């Protein structure tokens, strides 16, 4: 029986422009299938992976795979400030003091966080991987 560990993965490249998101999804899925906990942080241009109507006719289906990862228990965190910059959420404060993370453009189950959310994920991980960025 494999000892369950936590794998935290940072993705820093957008889907389709490179294979990094593809590699990340495959590695993450295998980790889940082997019984580990997986936390993914979408950073920079990688937040585009969270868009909910991706339909690549000819490319690796990153959106679908991310959805599958969420469904299988992966925690997918997306960088709040990167997402605001790229128009996914406003992140503005609502009257009750919370940030507005609502969006019609994002896959269900993606959670928005600040860099401190990622820092916490990095700190609790047993192993850390970074994909993309170059």
């Amino acid at each position: 029986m494999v000892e369950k560990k936590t794998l935290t993965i940072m993705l820093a490249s957008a889907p389709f422009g490179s294979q990094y998101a593809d590699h990340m999804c495959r590695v993450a899925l295998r980790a889940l299938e082997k019984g580990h906990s997986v936390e993914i942080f979408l950073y920079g241009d990688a937040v585009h992976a969270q868009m909910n109507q991706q339909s690549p006719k000819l490319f690796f289906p990153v959106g679908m795979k991310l959805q599958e990862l969420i469904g299988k228990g992966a925690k997918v965190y997306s960088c709040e400030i990167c997402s605001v910059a790229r128009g996914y959420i406003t992140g503005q404060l609502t009257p009750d003091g919370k940030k507005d993370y609502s969006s019609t453009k994002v896959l269900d189950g993606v959670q928005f966080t600040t860099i401190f959310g990622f820092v916490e994920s990095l700190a609790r991980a047993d192993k850390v991987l970074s994909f993309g960025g170059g």
Partner: protein
Amino acid sequence: MPKLVIEITHAPYGHENAYAGLFIAMGWVAVGNEVIVALHSDGVYAARKGQKDPMKEISLPSVEKQIMDVIEEGGRVIVDRTCIEVRGIDQEMLIKGVEVLGSDDLVELVYREGERVLTL
């Protein structure tokens, strides 16, 4: 204290990598952890001092300011000696507090000792 190594190999501004890596470094040290930002290859350019108002010039936040903040919070920002020499950069041109290490020593830190490593 958990240690994080962030390796940056891209020059600042042309790619987001240096900014993104330093942003993580800042968050990491701000909560009391240890960070090493290892700049080599074109990443060394991030450590050049005198970056004048990039926000006004090219609408991008200052990487110099980020490096200064990380150093102030106790983080280490290190450039590879060979990489700066090749690029004609000498120590006097670097941001105060940035360390210069020979390649062997930097390789030791990043590739031999680093346990949590992000590559950008």
